[in-house]
């Protein structure tokens, strides 16, 4: 998988591409940690380029959301969810846990 991180004034954005499974999820977790370690907890994840996400990836999503929402200090929002991953999020009951935006700019502009 490929991860690009961009830092904005009020939030950080991760653009994720490729396959997130048990082998690559640690890389995803690292990229998130690099942001939260700076005490930045407003994160946009653009997952439009993710073609596969197993529960290992979903775990990172929900754990990051827990970290970010703690003390009301931030939030993870998702941008551009592919259909298959939308189904996985639904089956996991994760839809209510994340705000979803149609594009990066709406997601970034929400912070």
């Amino acid at each position: 998988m490929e991860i690009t991180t961009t830092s904005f004034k009020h939030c950080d954005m991760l653009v994720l591409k490729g396959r997130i499974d048990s082998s690559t999820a640690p890389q995803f977790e690292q990229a998130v940690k690099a942001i939260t370690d700076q005490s930045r907890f407003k994160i946009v994840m653009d997952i439009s380029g993710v073609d596969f996400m197993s529960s290992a990836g979903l775990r990172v999503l929900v754990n990051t959301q827990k970290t970010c929402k703690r003390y009301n200090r931030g939030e993870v929002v998702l941008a551009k969810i592919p259909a298959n991953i939308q189904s996985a999020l639904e089956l996991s009951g994760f839809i209510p846990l994340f705000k979803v935006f149609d594009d990066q700019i709406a997601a970034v502009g929400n912070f």
Partner: protein
Amino acid sequence: MATMVVSGRYDNLVKIGDFVRQAAQDAGLDSFSVYQVETAVDEACTNIIEYAYGKEGAGDIECTCQATPSQFVVILRDWGKPFNPRKIHPPNLKAPLKKRQAHGLGLHFIRQWMDEVDFQFTGETGNVLTMVKRKEKTG
């Protein structure tokens, strides 16, 4: 029928995924069904590495795909510890974020996205997980 054997390591998941996706596509499954099968296989293999073998590189995973006109079957075999899947309860999908378990989704995906799921644990032949995806009736 096609079979692949890989060493139980997470970086082999992509190989098994490619193998199963290709076989499922060739069998004529629609693209979402293919995604569901690939997910179930990925979750099952992850569990084999994590729980049956307890670590990476401790044993092999054998993956066999079989297609019939009406269904697509994947059989996964390992030679690790057996377990009792009946004891594993579905995750609570309604819990508030703070109480939400990050674990426990793998078996849920397998059970929900495959039409039949059968675990067999017999000492000699290893542990066998058979998963069936029925084809959509077209017409």
